[in-house]
């Protein structure tokens, strides 16, 4: 099993957000997590990525059978955990290409493979950029600085393409993308999907799931998973909203 979350309780600034969440993900699976605003979807993604503001009050997270909470955020990343941010961060003065090469080489070093010099890396970057339909002019620019909302989301998936994670958590990558960009990015994710990785899509819209078909759909409400199903659950949610799920869960 790739990821196993058991009875997870998470708080931020003393406020309990996740309250007894369970979730299991195997390699080769795509999971969608849906749920009302403020239900804790991003909290879950950030806890998995190791954001220091969140306190794990109780529970266990096993990643490839090992305690994920023992690892620092950068160690998790090098071990293959990747979160595409709902709100990607701007890093002024640091070029996309520099940043990505450093990240890529840290990972290569970690898994004992060869690091790339700037020229070699540039070739790799060009290849990966095609996957998400990104122009090379973005390589030289500062990370996300002045990028449009949609460009930032594409840039997240470019990073995923470069870092080739085992567990990819895509937090509302679809929001902010125009219709064509959504298709391109979704196809990109499908290209990156394999039997060796697991993908978690956090989304509000069924539309994304037409492109990236999930094996499982989970509804997160009130700090835990209240309903699970196949891809047809997303369609049902789109029609009926969340109230019936919440009511049934009570």
């Amino acid at each position, binding site marked *: 099993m790739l990821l196993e979350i058991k009875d997870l309780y998470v708080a931020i600034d003393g406020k309990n957000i996740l309250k007894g969440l369970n979730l299991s993900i195997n390699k080769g699976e795509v999971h969608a997590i849906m749920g009302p605003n403020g239900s804790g979807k991003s909290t879950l993604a950030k806890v998995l*990525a*190791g*954001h*220091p503001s969140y306190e794990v009050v109780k529970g266990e997270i096993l990643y490839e059978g090992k305690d994920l909470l023992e690892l*620092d*955020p*950068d160690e*998790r*990343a*090098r071990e293959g955990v*990747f*979160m595409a*941010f709902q709100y*990607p*961060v*701007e*890093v*002024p*003065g*640091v*070029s996309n*290409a*520099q*940043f*990505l*090469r*450093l*990240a890529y*080489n*840290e*990972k290569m070093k*970690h898994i004992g493979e060869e690091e790339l*010099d*700037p020229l070699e890396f*540039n070739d790799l970057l060009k290849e990966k950029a095609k996957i998400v339909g990104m122009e090379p002019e973005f*390589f*030289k620019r*500062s*990370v996300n600085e002045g990028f449009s909302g949609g460009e930032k989301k594409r840039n997240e998936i470019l*990073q995923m393409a470069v*870092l080739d994670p085992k567990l990819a958590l895509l937090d509302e990558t679809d929001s902010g993308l125009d219709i064509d960009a959504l298709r391109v990015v979704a196809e990109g994710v499908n290209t990156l999907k394999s039997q060796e990785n697991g993908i978690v899509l956090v989304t509000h819209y069924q539309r994304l799931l037409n492109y990236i078909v999930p094996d499982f759909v989970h509804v997160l409400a009130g700090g835990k998973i209240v309903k699970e199903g196949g891809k047809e659950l997303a369609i049902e949610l789109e029609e009926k909203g969340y109230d019936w799920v919440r009511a049934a869960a009570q």
Partner: protein
Amino acid sequence: MSMSAGKETVFNAAFEKSIAGSEQPGWLIEIRRKAFGSFVEAGLPTVRNEEWKYTNVSPISAASWQVLTAEDAGPVSGDFDLTKGIFEEIEGGNRIVFVGGIFREDLSRMPEGVSASQFSEAYDDEKFRSKFSTIVDTELNGFTALNTAFSGEGIFLRAGKDTKVDQAINLVFIGVVGSAGFPRVLYIGETGSEAEIVEHYLRAEESEYLTNAVVEISLADEARLSHTRVQRESHSAYHVVTSQAELGRGSVYDNTNIHLGSKLSRHDLGMGFNAEGGEGWIDGLYLVDDEQHTDTHSRIDHRIPNCVSHQTYKGILDGKSRAVFNGKVFVHEKARGTDAYQSNKNLLLSNDARVDTKPQLEIFNDDVKCAHGATVGQLEEEELFYLLSRGLPEDLARNLLTYGFAEEVIEKIKVPSIKKALDEAVLSRLHSRLDTAE
């Protein structure tokens, strides 16, 4: 603000000695005597002076400095060998070297394409006479007065009409243990000329000395000058430098100031416009650690319409270091169409570091475009997490963010050796990974 008798004697004796045997013209002796008089009267500034409130130079006042003269400034004691290493990284094949404030022909390789002479060769030059000691106010403070008092010699650079000086002109300043050096430079860029000056303040060894330099710059119409100052003095040294530029019609002055070294550094810089259409970029980066203290006081005067001044200063402070930034921009009543921008941003890498910043913009005309601001902050936690979440180890991530903070100023530096020194200072370990990056 009087000086204690001991030090007065030190400078007095040195001053009288330098005047006594001198064959300098009367007008120059007069300027020097007057300057020394105003130094004796004012003394070196104290913290009671508003402009020196945060920068205490009493250790400079208290020390008994030796003042070198051309006669006793021959090859310096065996402590360091000037021919070894130190000049290796000065590019471009030329260097104008001052040791202990004294120009050293034996160590210099004079630049081509520009007239470079010692003051003594230029005493009769009308251009020299008309500008010398008219750009920097001798009475600005005790340091400018003292420098002028000892400024019988120095280097006079002149880029001729419509000439483009291909090589960057390197000015190299090296301190001598226990001495106070008073290097002085006058640059005149004639109409339509174009040149680049790089001032290197280097340390030959870790020792205590004072560099008290004055650099005067005069740009005629349509002249262009790129002026980079890189201060890498000994961490036990004092560095007090005043520079001032006057800009002619349509001239462009691009000035970048990097402060990495010295125990205490103070830079007073100024810019003024003589005619419309002048543009000045004055940028800086100070990077201090331990107990270092750095102070930049700038003053930009817009008295003439339609001129541009842009000032971006960034500071990175670690350890118990301290930085002072005071930037005055005055837009006078007649200066319509002024475009003035000033910003000072500081990054504190330690809780014990401290910044006192005061950008000051005073505008007496409505038809202008002006903005200013200052910030003091720490690394952004969300930016740090973003980098960590991509697998960068924490120290690398912090270095990269620090580099990103300074990048705006660093990217202006084109001289490879300086770029390298900066990279090493900003991100010692990141350097090797980035040096060939785009």
